[in-house]
Each structure stands twice: as structure tokens, then as C-alpha cells.
């Protein structure tokens, strides 16, 4: 079972490395959105510091959501997905593998680019580190929840915009605490334990429930 899991992860990573632009597009989408906000709101330091956590998180939500459409689409198009459904391995393990690969390609780069946001928005160093940590815990939750939506909208016309309608409301809790912890850290609060506990709680909950729901959604969509 673990072998099948690793196999899926390696396969998806290899496939993605052959088409690196997909990964870079997501990353640059994030950077562009984050860079546009100061142009719209004005570049006053106080304002930017205040909106930075929210902007970074909304941009992260949108970036990870845009990438979701591709999570199952190409496998669905070339028939690999049907083969995956037929394997004796439990489907949720394979789903988990695909989501992990997807996160490594789209979520992790966002975590690593976060200091750039800190730079653009004059965030103190502590807040930048907090933001990276929050994104590190939070973006996998986004990928996991999003996978359900991606499976439900598989192969539909206008699936991408529909996906956003279904999934964005479900991202709210992650965004509230993810942005909240950065704001708290930026104004010098030291007691951030509660935020990280809640975010980790979301991650555990999503890890347990989302692969099962995604597997069910895939069976509904493919059969």
C-alpha cells in the first residue's frame, strides 16, 4: 500500500518535471496578485503591513485553486484515472498520493516564496517566519479540500469557475486563522500557540476525511 502511494507521488512529480511551466505559472500567478495589491491600495507602509496577511492568504487560495483543475484532469483525459479506480489498492491512498504530489508542486513553492511577500509589504522578520509556518500547515489543507471539488467537477464544461464557487467558501476557516496568526505576530503577540493548534487540527481533520470524500467523488464522476 505504501509502495503504491510512493509510486503515485513519484509518477506525478516526474510528469510535472517534464512540463515545468505549469508549476511556474502557479507561482507567478501568486507573485503577480500579491504585487498588484500595493498598486491598487497605495504604497503606504502602515496600510500594507495591515493588509499583508489577508492579501497573501487570498492570493494563496486563488493560486492553489487554479492549479487544482489539473489535479485529475489529465489522468481523466488519457484514461489513467479509470485504471486507478480499478486497482486493488484502496482508492483513498492513491488520492492522498496525488494530493501530496500536487501540494509539493503548488503549495510548497508558495511557502518558499512567502519571504518575498514579507519584503514587499514591510513585514517584520518574525511575522515572515510565522507566515511561512502558517502556509506550511495551511496550504496542504487547501489542496486536500480542493481535491474534493476537483473530483466533483471532473470533465465538466466551465469546471474551473464552478470549482471556485464550490471550494472557496470551504477555505474560509483556514484563511481566517492563517491570516490571523500573521496579523497577531506582526503586532508583536507572542502567544501564537492557539492559532497553530487550530490550523494543525484542520490539517489532521482534512487528512482523515478529504481522501475518503475525494475517492467517493471520483467514483461518482467516472462511473
Amino acid at each position, binding site marked *: 500500500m505504501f509502495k503504491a502511494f510512493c509510486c503515485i507521488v513519484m509518477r506525478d512529480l516526474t510528469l510535472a518535471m517534464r512540463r515545468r511551466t505549469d508549476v511556474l505559472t502557479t507561482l507567478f500567478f501568486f507573485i503577480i496578485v500579491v504585487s498588484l495589491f500595493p498598486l491598487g491600495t497605495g504604497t503606504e507602509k502602515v496600510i500594507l503591513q495591515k493588509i499583508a496577511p489577508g492579501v497573501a492568504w487570498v492570493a494563496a487560495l486563488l493560486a492553489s485553486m487554479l492549479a487544482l483543475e489539473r489535479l485529475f484532469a489529465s489522468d481523466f483525459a488519457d484514461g489513467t484515472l479509470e485504471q486507478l479506480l480499478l486497482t486493488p489498492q484502496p482508492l483513498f491512498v492513491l488520492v492522498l498520493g496525488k494530493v501530496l504530489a500536487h501540494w509539493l508542486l503548488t503549495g510548497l513553492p508558495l511557502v518558499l516564496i512567502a519571504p518575498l511577500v514579507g519584503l514587499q509589504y514591510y513585514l517584520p522578520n518574525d511575522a515572515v517566519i510565522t507566515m511561512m509556518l502558517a502556509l506550511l500547515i495551511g496550504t496542504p489543507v487547501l489542496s486536500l479540500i480542493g481535491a474534493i471539488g476537483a473530483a*466533483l467537477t471532473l470533465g465538466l464544461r466551465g469546471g474551473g469557475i464552478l470549482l471556485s464557487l464550490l471550494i*472557496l467558501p470551504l477555505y474560509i*476557516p483556514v484563511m481566517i486563522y492563517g491570516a490571523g496568526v500573521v496579523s497577531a505576530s506582526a503586532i508583536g503577540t507572542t502567544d501564537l500557540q492557539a492559532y497553530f493548534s487550530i490550523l494543525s487540527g484542520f490539517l489532521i481533520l482534512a487528512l482523515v476525511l478529504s481522501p475518503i470524500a475525494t475517492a467517493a467523488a471520483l467514483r461518482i464522476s467516472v462511473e
Partner: protein
Amino acid sequence: MSINWFKYSSPATFYPLAGKMIPFFGWLTAILMAGGLYWGFFETPDRLSDQKEYYRIIYIHVGAAWMSMWLYIMMAAWALAGLVLQTRLSFMIAKAIAPTGAIATFLALWTGAFWGETSWGTWWDWDPRMTSELILLFLYMGYMALQSAIDDPRRADRAAALLALVGLVCVPIIFWSINCPDPNECAALHQTSNPGGGNMEPNILIAMLVTALAFWMYSFVAILMRVRNIILERERHTTWVKELLEKNK
């Protein structure tokens, strides 16, 4: 004595049953609504008032808000029943509930805005309850959008049902996180604007409960009417629908 409940889970038997139930719930709605509003408008001493008669919005606001949440739970419950028991009718009921729920949610927001403008002086406030209601509207919209985006009714039903269940799991978490964005100081944020500050004038309370009940009965009417439409649409190739058309001629 045991009743065979599954008999009524067949669309062919439910269709005429729903037809008989609609007038019943319709009259119940009319009576309760008329009674509740009469009581609320004319039999209530204006004790709340320094002539602040806007509080009468309460008779639609509360009913709509309660129904918006109750209908989402019901929709998810029927969706679950459909997924577990594999009954087509359950999916049809879930599908029929969504628009009524969305309308109730919209009404709660709309009347809330007018109430807010009179009592707080603002149309919109990012108060936890209002925000939660707005998110609920998004969830209804997502359900209906997914349902209508899929052409194959079997897949549409099951996909939307799964979405409703995922939504049901997420709703408490979403509401809770909106209520308490800072985990270090949670209790402070609960809204204390109970109509009448918690000790409501009993006549107003009675009128409000009666009208809320009327909203519930109204939901039955709207949902049953829509279920009948969905049944006809889906079962148009079956013999019982053809016989029904023969009779209607």
C-alpha cells in the same frame, strides 16, 4: 402494525401524495401567517417602541433565518439518505429544497440589512451572524450550480449530494471560525443583539414563533411543488406518467 415506508419512496406513489399534501400545507401557511401577522401588528402593545415600528421586520427576518439553516440541514439529510439508501426520490427532494433554502437565506440577509440600517445605522456589518448567513448563501449557490452543471441526472444527484454532505461537515467549522477569529479571546465576540435585548415582549415572541412556523409550512408547499415538477421531468418515459397525461386530457 408496520407501515411500508418505502412504498412512498417511489416517485409514482409520492407524486399524487404530494399533490394532496400541497393544499393542506398551503392552508396551514395562510392561516398561520395571517394569524401571526395580525397578532404581531395589531395585538402587540408597542412596548418596544419609542415608535420604533421597524421591529416588525422580525416576523419575516427570524422565520427566514431559521428556515435557511434548517433547510440546509434537511437538504444534506436527504442527500445522505439518497447516497445510503439509493432512493431516487431522496435526491429529488434534496434538489427541490435548495432553491427554497437559497431564497430564505437571501430574505434573511435582505430584511437583516433593512433592520440593520434602522437600528444600527448601517446596511451591512461584518457581524458573525450576518457573515455566516452570507456564506450559507454561497453554499446553496454552489450546490445548485454543481447540480445544474452536470447533464447526467444520476451523476448530478450524487455529486451534489456529496457536496452537501461536505458542506454540512464544514458549516460548523466555518461558523465557529467566523465567530471567533482570535482564539485567544473568543467569548467576547458573541453578538448580544437579541431582539428586545433578550427579554422579548411575550406577544411579539408569540407572533414571531407563529410566523416562523408559517415559514416552515410554506417551505413544504414550495418544496413539494418543485418535487412534483422534478418527478414529472425525470419520469416522463414511464407508463404511470403517460397514464397521468391520458387522464388529464
